[in-house]
């Protein structure tokens, strides 16, 4: 039995992630982004030592460079000159904006990596099977088929290697071989899958209007309290955002990056909201 954040009611976990993604997209201030980056890394370390997140290092690097690069080369606005190449001005504003955008994209990615580790298929199903049963089943099936198909692909590849012993020379033959591999995979999977579907039907799929979920999740008082807690923090952050806190005005004139008193409060709320899994987890251990 798991404990801590993962043991909470699926609805609370889901609310945490939906709120977190909105906040990550809304708050556009270097201090907020840096704080969020530290917290999101910590949340990822909490569950698997950050191993999954580390797998994305290359992609994150490329995307970040792309965003900073495009911004620097297309925008010359801003009064803080960093560098002058020919008659192209590289400004502090453009660089900062690109870095903040890259940071936000990293945050969204990191949040999803942790989401996939925390919310199990059972919990996902429990939440969505009532609202959109067909979509829930469709996505559950599709997500399950992917690892299966990857395994089958490897098997087919082994057979193909035996058939022609060694690697193929021309690129056209290589592509043809790959497409043949996919074709075999398609017929194999469709044949098996459709037979399963017939047996699903024989065992009564679609005869009952509403089905209950396999796993039962209890809604406890503590879940309600957590829910209220998260809602209050979220409202605080959104209230701040509406009043322009947590957003750095860069254009036309860059505002002073220093945080005002109210901004510190919003930053505190933001930090508390995002690090919710961390202290729930620590509290469960203690």
């Amino acid at each position, binding site marked *: 039995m798991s404990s801590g954040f993962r043991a909470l009611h699926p609805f609370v976990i889901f609310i945490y992630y939906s709120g977190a993604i909105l906040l990550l*997209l*809304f708050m*556009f201030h270097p201090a907020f982004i840096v704080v969020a980056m530290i917290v999101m890394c910590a949340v990822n370390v909490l569950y698997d030592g950050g191993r999954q997140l580390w797998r*994305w290092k290359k*992609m994150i690097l490329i995307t970040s460079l792309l*965003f900073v690069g*495009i*911004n620097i080369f*297309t*925008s010359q*606005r801003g009064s803080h000159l960093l560098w002058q190449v020919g008659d192209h001005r590289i400004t502090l504003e*453009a660089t900062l*904006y*690109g870095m903040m*955008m890259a940071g*936000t*994209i990293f945050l*969204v*990615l990191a949040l*999803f*990596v942790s989401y*996939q580790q925390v919310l199990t298929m059972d919990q996902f199903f429990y939440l969505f099977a009532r609202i*959109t*049963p*067909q*979509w829930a*089943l*469709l*996505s559950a*099936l*599709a*997500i399950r*088929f*992917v690892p299966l*198909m*990857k395994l089958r*692909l490897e098997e087919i590849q082994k057979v193909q290697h035996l058939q022609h012993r060694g690697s193929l020379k021309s690129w056209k033959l290589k*592509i*043809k071989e*790959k*497409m043949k*591999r*996919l*074709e075999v*995979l*398609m*017929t194999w*999977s469709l*044949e098996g*899958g*459709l037979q*399963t*579907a*017939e047996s*699903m*039907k024989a065992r009564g*799929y*679609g005869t009952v209007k509403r089905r209950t979920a396999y796993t039962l999740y209890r809604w406890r008082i503590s879940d309600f309290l957590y829910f209220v807690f998260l809602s209050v923090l979220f409202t605080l952050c959104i209230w701040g955002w509406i009043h322009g806190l947590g*957003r750095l005005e860069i*254009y036309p004139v860059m505002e002073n990056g220093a945080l005002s008193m109210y901004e510190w409060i919003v930053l505190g709320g933001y930090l508390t909201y995002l690090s919710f899994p961390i202290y729930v987890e620590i509290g469960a251990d203690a």
Partner: protein
Amino acid sequence: MKYSNALLGLILLILISVLVWMDPIDQSPLFISLLFVGLMVIPLLLRFERKQLGSKELVLLALLTAFAAVSRVPFAGIPSVQPTTFVIIVAAFIFGAESGFIIGAGAALVSNIFLGQGPWTPWQMVSWGLVGLSAGLLRQPLLKWKWIRLLFGFIWGFLFGWIMNAWVFLSMEEQTLTSFLAVYAASFYFDLAHALSNVFFLALFAKTWIRILERFKQKYGISNVA
């Protein structure tokens, strides 16, 4: 079914009012672009939800969605070259526009679970969804001809990249003609590679794959999803 109609109306109303309320896009460009995409995707998803599908149709859609996503795996090393678009076009050609949309949108969602979820996911859902939708709509007279099919694949190679560029452009701080051209020029070679690979796959493999899927449709008596 009244209930889902009301739900659909409510969601659309909320999305539109949020869009109107936050008129300056630069307040949170990524969020606005997500909302915009949501406006396009949600009605189609709910429409699908209202159809009572049989087990075979449901499993078939799931299989083809997963398959379109997995088909990227053998070609992982080459950027922009992937048969996913091809698979979606072929599947929509056999099973219709709505199936095409679901397979396309689903393939984007599912493949990003393994390739990295981010602000680009909803845009990919829309792009690939529209590939399937249009292939299904045009299948009757037009896509029967091989040359039109090839042209269709070529056009979508570029169109896909152009839709994806939109979110890059929206998230830039300066939306001017120069930055617009810069983004679209930077993606040109990737789009070209995508377009040419679509043509290549459609030219060489479409006939066999259509025959296989047609056979499955007949053998298991799968009705048109839409």
